[in-house]
């Protein structure tokens, strides 16, 4: 082992991982030093790399980040042969037309006698394909097999990555709590019963109290128009997580492009329901609208602005508060109806990231706009 000491390598790798935003803390670093003192990972560079994996990696992505950081710190001299090979492969992909092991699943669709792709989508998580494979479409074309095989130490992470995980969303919904004791007494109030017994000397009757119940609810209007295709996986995670949120009432309705008189129970725009009926049934609930509001198409349409404003006007009295979640990046709102919505209407518009979602949740819970 030449060059840096084991401790130096650990520090370098740790710094590199922090730079790559792997969520590690001082404690993790101190633990690695202690492990080194206890005799783990000191034998060779390979042992040291395995120690980093064991201590710091929680997923394939992190394992990969560690390998990259390790290569940077511990073996700074790049493997020229490998780089040349990679370059050659990129210049002439046809020279190495062997599908890699990761693409095996898509092979059947390439064989001529096989039913074209129709039979395979059931093995896909619809969220995996993101923008390429529309979630609800069973005849969607699967991702094409890659032309070249991964080289050397190159690895790929092929798991679907959603913007916000189902777990995080569920936790957020669960934070929308407002517990009250309402209704008839159902639960034994032990303290009061004991006090009653001490006061009277006998117990005439057990004291009951209403059980605590979450009275918070949420209504979601989600856009499933083609401009929202990249976020369909997110919408399906949103609908799934909402059911786990333990809210008193929760419902997702879908619309295409612009919400008007009719909304739909299904993302495929089936089972329509009148907006007035929704307003009657779910009056007073907070409302979350998920739509790009014209930002994805990127041009300004006065008609769309008028229609959006009219819709916002129409629902304002019925649902309170209303938050508009616009998944397009904020700079793309400029010059479209989405920007007008931010400036002119009284509803709050937030982008799609974790911080903004937490903010949206606060707003939906009834906090004032900043």
């Amino acid at each position, binding site marked *: 082992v030449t060059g840096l000491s084991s401790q130096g390598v650990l520090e370098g790798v740790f710094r590199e991982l922090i730079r790559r935003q792997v969520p*590690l803390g001082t404690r*993790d670093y101190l633990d690695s030093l202690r492990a080194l003192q*206890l005799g783990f990972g000191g034998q060779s560079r390979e042992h040291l790399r395995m120690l980093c994996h064991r201590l710091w990696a929680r997923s394939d992505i992190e394992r990969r980040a560690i390998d990259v950081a390790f290569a940077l710190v511990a073996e700074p001299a790049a493997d020229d042969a490998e780089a040349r090979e990679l370059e050659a492969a990129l210049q002439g992909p046809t020279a190495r037309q062997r599908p890699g092991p990761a693409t095996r699943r898509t092979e059947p669709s390439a064989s001529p006698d096989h039913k074209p792709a129709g039979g395979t989508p059931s093995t896909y998580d619809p969220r995996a394909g993101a923008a390429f494979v529309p979630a609800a479409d069973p005849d969607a074309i699967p991702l094409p097999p890659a032309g070249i095989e991964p080289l050397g130490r190159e690895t790929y992470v092929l798991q679907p990555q959603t913007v916000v*995980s189902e777990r995080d969303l569920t936790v957020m919904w669960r934070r929308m709590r407002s517990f009250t004791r309402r209704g008839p007494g159902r639960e034994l109030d032990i303290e009061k019963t*004991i006090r009653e017994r001490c006061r009277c000397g006998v117990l005439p009757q057990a004291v009951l109290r209403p059980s605590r119940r979450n009275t918070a609810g949420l209504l979601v209007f989600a856009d499933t128009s083609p401009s929202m295709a990249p976020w369909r996986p997110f919408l399906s995670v949103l609908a799934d997580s909402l059911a786990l949120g333990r809210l008193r009432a929760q419902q997702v309705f879908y619309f295409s492009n612009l919400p008007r008189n009719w909304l739909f129970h299904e993302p495929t725009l089936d089972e329509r329901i009148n907006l007035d009926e929704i307003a009657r049934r779910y009056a007073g609930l907070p409302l979350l609208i998920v739509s790009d509001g014209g930002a994805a198409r990127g041009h300004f349409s006065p008609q769309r602005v008028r229609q959006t404003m009219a819709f916002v006007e129409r629902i304002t009295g019925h649902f309170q508060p209303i938050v508009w979640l616009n998944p397009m990046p904020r700079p793309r709102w400029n010059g479209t109806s989405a920007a007008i919505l931010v400036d002119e209407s009284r509803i709050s518009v937030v982008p799609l990231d974790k911080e903004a979602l937490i903010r949206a949740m606060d707003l939906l819970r009834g906090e004032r706009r900043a």
Partner: protein
Amino acid sequence: MNYKNYTGSGTDFYQTTSAVAETVNLAIKLQRPILVEGEPGCGKTKLAHSVAAELGLGEPIELRIKSTTQAKDLLYRFDALRRLQEVQNPQFAERARYVYPYISLQRLGLAIQAGKPCVVLIDEIDKADIDFPNDLLDVFDQFSFDIEDLPQEEDQRCRAERSFGRMVKSTPDLKPIVVITSNREKQLPEPFLRRCIYLELVFPKDPGLLAAIVRKNLDHSADDLASDLIAAAVERFLAIRDQARKAGADQKLPATSELIDWIRILHWRGQAPERIRNSEGLPPYHEVLFKTANDRRRFEGEAS
């Protein structure tokens, strides 16, 4: 005092690789919980038993998790109903004025109070509600917990009579070794993952190791099992797993426990090693290896 080194081959019922043993040792030395993930039937729970047995710690304290389990349930229980019942009985009315007689420590609580070296196994943590792992974080960090139901003014009295107070804490020479298993049914919270040493048990590809695992798992009645039968079965089994994966029969790929069942049947039915190795098309008694009809059909389609 220190825990001994775990080798992974020191028991007569479990065998694992040195890499797994090294990870276990690392977690023990750093006093962090071990989170074990892996496909069903690859020996996650058995790993905890093997650590306990090899280090001479007796049976592990096993906590089985249900969907309704709360962190508190593992630590202590407050029997409010019994208190209510007894307050009406003049014989117990005096006692029922206090809360502490109705508090009983549960298995994890008892282990923390005892402060003895042991293995605590929390099985299938992903079955619990999503808040559960976070609630346990502090408990594993400090190896102490607070009995919230016990009023502060009863602390002294409880300490005198029950030998624990509101704060149950032990100053063990050795913290218990905590092994947590998960089937990945739910995503676990990030802070929880960070606290644990992560260990993924992968299915062994080495026929020698697999044969050793099989031998350790067969009962003594199967002692006379010829080693060439085991070798043949293991060899064929690895091929079957490959075929099954290729055919997409991977809802539940056959793992160690299925392999052991299969070898038992092969032995019981007197199958010759050559036949197991060379049978054209479907291997004998392959039905034992698949847990869903769908998997089996797909495999049969691929193999025949």
